[in-house]
């Protein structure tokens, strides 16, 4: 905890509660929380297996207040962590025990919808859906749409580079941000990106988005708005197995069609969804595919005809087509409820997030199935079939001895399978605290070392959301890169090394 560096400021030893009066001066006493019972609200984010009650929580209302809080923490060497809506699934907003949790829920103004320039400016606490709702009267929407969009904050989306079901065609948060005002660890407020599609200098915007709150705290966000599509076509297709569903997906992609979304659920996930929201997906299906096409009506109609034909050709046992928004919502209801739904068929579960190349999906699903059998732990599969992003839901009964451990073990083994197949340990939920141990399996020491150079540039004292992403923090200020071979001074003959 805290900075263990030889960076700029030597932090004075301090405990967080000592800073409370100073924080009260910045945000007002009502916005500083020191009562342990109230602080419990913030003891975890969406990943409830990691809990830590912060020493203090503050709720700033302006960008200047956020910067002042960061300065105050920096002066006394206290770590700080930003939290939006607390829906994250990797513990990225896990609070510091002896530090300050900076909660952005009071910063929720939509500052401006600038339709003429197809952009909007919002504060970080605004919910993802609220952005689209604000843009809708102008005929626009905010494209990245995580399933938690009713609750999750845009600031959190920026930290995690969130995707959502429609990212296959529409991209992720990083493709939809034109500028960020950031409270930097140095204590100043700065804009990165300039509101246009071609800013000068390094793409710090691209590097910051997805940095999981470790490089600074976002205080204003300029989002790109997308014109609402002319037409949307949604269909649900049932298949006898995930293999057959996967073959349909391959055929669709192979035909040159790029749907807005392709989602798949296996039999166990369907069972759970049915128990939770009575979505009435075709009974007995080994897998269901949800395919959504959007764009100009002239294209959507033709693409839809092709998708329909390909689903039939690859063995769909039933196909349902949405003819209006209500039917579209009905098709999506089961998928959107899937994570929470497994709570109906299992006392406890782990939501995993891994990626494999799409073409490896059949092999990987078979492997998961076999690992599941060996461990005696059930796994329900929900995934973004178009891009290989898996969400295995590892189901267990935590009252039975050893099951929780076996579930954790299986969940980790699934990530190993993803890495073996050339994939990733996280497609959208982030590394946070949950997966930092896996980073060395995916990246070499030189890779991790180099990534952390960025951290040293933004946060040399290591106070901004420390302990996240990287298992071993880098000492800033040491010469970067691993030493291989002779020191340059030795090579040039200026010194001898003993």
């Amino acid at each position: 905890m805290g900075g263990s560096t030889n960076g700029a400021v030597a932090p004075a030893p301090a405990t967080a509660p000592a800073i409370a009066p100073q924080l009260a001066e910045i945000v007002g006493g009502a916005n500083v929380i020191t009562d342990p019972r109230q602080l419990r609200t913030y003891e975890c984010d969406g990943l409830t297996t990691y809990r830590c009650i912060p020493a203090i929580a503050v709720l700033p209302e302006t960008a200047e207040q956020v910067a002042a809080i960061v300065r105050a923490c920096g002066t006394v060497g206290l770590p700080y962590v930003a939290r939006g809506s607390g829906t994250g699934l990797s513990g990225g907003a896990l609070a510091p025990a002896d530090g300050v949790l900076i909660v952005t829920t009071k910063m929720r103004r939509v500052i401006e919808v600038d339709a003429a320039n197809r952009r909007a400016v919002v504060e970080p606490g605004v919910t993802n859906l609220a952005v689209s709702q604000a843009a809708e009267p102008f005929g626009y929407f905010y494209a990245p749409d995580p399933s938690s969009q009713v609750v999750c904050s845009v600031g959190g989306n920026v930290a995690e580079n969130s995707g959502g079901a429609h990212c296959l065609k529409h991209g992720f948060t990083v493709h939809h941000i034109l500028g960020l005002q950031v409270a930097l660890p140095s204590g100043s407020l700065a804009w990165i990106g300039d509101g246009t599609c071609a800013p000068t200098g390094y793409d710090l915007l691209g590097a910051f988005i997805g940095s999981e709150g470790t490089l600074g705290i976002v205080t204003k966000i300029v989002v790109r708005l997308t014109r609402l599509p002319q037409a949307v076509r949604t269909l649900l297709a049932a298949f006898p197995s995930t293999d057959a569903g996967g073959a349909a997906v391959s055929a669709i992609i192979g035909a040159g069609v790029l749907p807005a979304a392709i989602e798949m659920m296996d039999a166990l996930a369907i069972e759970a969804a049915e128990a939770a929201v009575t979505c009435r997906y075709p009974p007995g299906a080994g897998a269901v595919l949800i395919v959504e096409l959007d764009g100009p009506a002239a294209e959507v109609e033709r693409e839809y005809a092709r998708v329909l034909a390909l689903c039939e050709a690859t063995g769909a046992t039933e196909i349902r087509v949405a003819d209006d928004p209500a039917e579209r919502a009905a098709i999506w209801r089961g998928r959107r409820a899937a994570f929470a739904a497994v709570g109906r068929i299992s006392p406890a579960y782990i939501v995993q997030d891994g990626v494999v190349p799409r073409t490896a999906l059949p092999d990987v699903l078979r492997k998961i199935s076999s690992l599941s059998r060996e461990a005696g732990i059930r796994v329900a599969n929900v995934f973004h079939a178009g891009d290989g992003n898996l969400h295995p839901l590892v189901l267990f009964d935590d009252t039975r001895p050893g099951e929780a451990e076996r579930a954790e073990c299986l969940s980790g083994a699934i990530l190993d399978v993803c890495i073996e197949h050339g994939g990733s340990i996280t497609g959208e939920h982030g590394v946070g605290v949950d997966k930092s141990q896996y980073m060395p399996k995916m990246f070499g020491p030189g890779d991790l070392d180099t990534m952390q150079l960025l951290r040293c540039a933004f946060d040399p004292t290591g106070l901004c959301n420390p302990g996240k992403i990287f298992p071993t923090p880098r000492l800033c200020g040491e010469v970067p890169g691993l030493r291989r071979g002779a020191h340059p001074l030795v090579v040039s003959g200026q010194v001898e090394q003993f």
Partner: protein
Amino acid sequence: MRPGGPADAVFGMVPAAVASPGTVTEAAELLRAAAGHGFAILPRGAGTKLTWGTPPDRCDLIVETTQLDRVIEHAAGDLVVRVQAGLTMVRLAAELATAGQQLALDVPAGTSGGTVGGVVATGAAGPRRLRYGAPRDLLIGITVVLADGTVASAGGKVVKNVAGYDIGKLFAGSHGTLGLITEATFRLHPLPEAAAYVTVPCAAAAGALEAVRAAIDSQLAPSAAEIDRPAPGLPVSVCLLFEGTTDGITERVTRMREILGEGARAGEAPPAWWGRSVAAAGATALRIAFAPGALPSVLDAVDETAATLSPGILRPAIRGSAGAGVLEAGLTAQTPPDVAASFVAAVRRRLSAPPGWGDLPGGSVAVVHAPAEILGRVDVFGPLTAAELMWAVKNQFDPAHLMSPGRFAGGI
């Protein structure tokens, strides 16, 4: 490795040596050895963009990527390709086309397009950036060699991937100042079945903005919305690209012509100016980035500044991605250097009013390429927001300032 010769000169600076590593390991050893001697390093692919940016402070060693030119893996089923940085864009396109796929980045017509590494390092994009973005938007993995010889990879070969920092985006557009790009992995798109262009002449910028807006608001989803205006006072040509299915295109183009009215023409071939720089080598090209709704202000700024500074002499041509908000303004090769330099500074001053969100810059004016006499007189990149932060990044990745020193914004 061979000694540098006159043909290798960059802005008159002849490097002591030119090296052409055949593998990433060789490149790493080369850079490590060069660092030991404090050599300033300039990466070079096909050399098509070496004249972009400020002349370097020093240039001791050119590291050529021409031997690193393989397609490492084209996973067509996954719409992903991994390549070495020295592969040319044209050769990559040919390889991908055999599977009906593309890396959706435009290269100037009639050129090799340069190398993959050069395109990523300069962030070069063309008309279809409106739909597909710039190189950074399509890049999903990268391998680089730092000045001290460290080899580092980030991202991977899957499109959904948020593990670790996105070093690829950091290197995209960094003009060789952070390290040498040796490999890049991209997400691909299917090649469209058909394409068509709809062109309409507009009397002035206001009309052009209306046409571009109408196209985007129409929900007909153009892949590009470009303008061309050869000189002040002449009409502005607006051209829209539609990609999709053969029959779908026909419908959309018909509808677009209805919306744009008389004068709108459709065709299968782009206009001759499409995707080409507004200024040939030896002339001066500025890049202006702006919020798309400000198109008339940008054209006014360019024309009025030209008229004020040097009526009759300065008649800037304008061309580019009006829909996306990036244009080029071109001055002829005969433009006197001091006039050109004054023009750049004046246009930049005129366009520097922020949009009302504190100190968000709202746009920029940069010199893409210009004769040496003009480069010596202008601030090529203009003011840099977050300059301190950018220098901090530079100092972490290249503390000895060996990688393309002085080539970039803010003196980096």
